[in-house]
């Protein structure tokens, strides 16, 4: 398994995918730094208080995290959906699986390699963005590692789904299904919040069912919660507008949903292994 994981990481580096991601992240972080410093300087010139500036910067960070989270999800989908399918179609996998290599080791090795690349990219880019924004604005989230970990977790959940789809479906189909499923789960999360605020149990049920099927929304809640300053949470908690906003979270995700996400990932990977074992190569 570790041989295949190492091979997968090597592939990302050798095919220049990693370097493209690093360059894109550097551009995004530079633009963010420039934008935030310009905004903060302008706000200070206009005499806004530090509290107001912190609030504004936290909102910008949440918006950047939203965009970055989507980029990570797309990266997971584009990396994961061809992971098995393309190698089976091309015959690269057959040459390796005729060796004493278990199909489970092959699949989990592919997943692990991609997971390390995606989580590493999420951690490096996310922490760099938060650090740079902190440097130019003076605002750092209470625990910068937490939102980055949630962003990585969200993309790993989606990576697992795409790897499962990759054992049966062509890459484009698997990637498209995963991205659409992620979008639906995100929307279901928003509807669930609105349902709670409006006391509409059917909306809440839809949201709960969606979290059960694809637990990515809980991670987004964790990202938002982790990027907010505590005074914002205290001030906005209970406000109707805040309770319905996808860009506000009064709490982090419940431990139960995080445990479910872990169990879900294990189950999805087990299903992927079973699918690959059953498949005639």
């Amino acid at each position, binding site marked *: 398994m570790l041989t295949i994981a190492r091979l997968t990481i090597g592939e990302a580096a*050798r*095919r220049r995918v990693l370097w493209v991601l690093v360059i894109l992240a550097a551009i995004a972080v530079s633009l963010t730094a420039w934008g935030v410093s310009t905004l903060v300087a302008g706000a200070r010139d206009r005499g806004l208080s530090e509290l107001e500036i912190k609030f504004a910067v936290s909102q910008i960070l949440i918006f950047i995290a939203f965009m970055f989270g989507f980029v990570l999800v797309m990266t997971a989908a584009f990396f994961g959906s061809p992971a098995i399918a393309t190698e089976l179609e*091309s*015959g690269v996998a*057959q040459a*390796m699986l*005729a*060796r*004493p290599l278990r199909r489970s080791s092959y699949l989990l090795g592919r997943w692990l390699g991609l997971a390390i690349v995606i989580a590493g990219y999420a951690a490096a880019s996310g922490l760099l963005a938060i650090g740079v924004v902190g440097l130019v604005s003076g605002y750092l989230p209470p625990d910068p590692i937490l939102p980055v970990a949630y962003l990585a977790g969200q993309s790993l959940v989606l990576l697992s789904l795409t790897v499962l789809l990759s054992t049966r479906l062509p890459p484009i189909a698997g990637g498209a299904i995963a991205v659409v499923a992620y979008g639906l789960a995100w929307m279901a999360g928003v509807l669930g919040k609105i349902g709670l605020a409006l006391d509409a149990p059917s909306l809440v049920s839809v949201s709960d069912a969606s979290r059960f099927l694809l637990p990515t929304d809980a991670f987004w809640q964790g990202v938002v919660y982790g990027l907010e300053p505590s005074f914002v949470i205290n001030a906005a908690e209970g406000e109707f507008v805040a309770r319905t906003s996808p860009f506000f979270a009064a709490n982090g995700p419940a431990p139960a949903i995080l445990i479910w996400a872990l169990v879900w990932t294990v189950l999805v990977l087990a299903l992927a292994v079973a699918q690959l074992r059953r498949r*005639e190569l």
Partner: protein
Amino acid sequence: MIRMPRLSLDLPAIEVTDLRKRYGAVEALAGLTMSVGRGEVFGFLGPNGAGKTTTVKLLLGLARPTSGSGKVLGAPLGDLGTRRKVGYLPELFRYQPWLRAREVLTLHGELMGLPRSRRRPAADEALQVVGLADRAGDVVGRFSKGMQQRLGLGAALLGEPALVVLDEPTSALDPVGRVDVRGIVRSAADRGAAVFLNSHLLSEVEQVCDRVAILDHGRVVASGALDDVLGQAETVVRVSGLGAGDLSAVERFGPPTLEGEVLTIRPMEEAGVPDLVAQLVSMGARIHEVRSGRSSLEQRFLELVARDRPPAGTPSAQRLR
């Protein structure tokens, strides 16, 4: 933990009994029974869709048989540990295009469990054998098809496996490459490896194999030593001035048949040809051409696999397309 196979030189390299494989309504393999010995080059022949590649996949554990049983190097089909001792060149030979040739082989060395210190020397040795030593550091994605097939052959020979399975090993090679492959196959057999050569290139099989099996519609229609499969030797004489009544005079050479000007004596070895010619001349016949020998593998193959096929162009043949 993958169990190391216990190899015995007494056991056949491959032994399968009544192996069947069904894909939905299609019976790809309909009861294959065969045995391949150590140090033997075994040619597995058949037209497209006969079940050759299916057999290879079953032997390597890439697909599971619907029924039947088999052993590879003494272990049941699909045994993981045995694959350490099996080299395989797939029909669809594709390797990581972003790796260098030597890296592909060291990766396969790692996957087959070669000790770390042996991987690079074994890779270099295999590259040398297949004529890619000077391209060891080149990226595989820039290789021609022929070079990729040579690399695949190198992967199949890596670490001196006890069984080498080659699925259409010369499909992308030029004539020089084909000659090279014949030499490589023979030297693998000379060091004691069994070589299972899956091919539809009959001349290739004829020149390199000790035994052959001809597969058609998932069934073996002929098998055995090449001489046995090719059948008896015959002598064909194009002759004029000979009548049916003269045939009794040449019966001592073998049973004769005369069709127009073509006299066929079967069986008849080549050694009797001068005496036969002398006899015919003494009878006043005029000889235009004499051919002696066995039918080629191609002729035999066509006899075997074409006998239940309608001729091309007939309505039923057109339906098959």
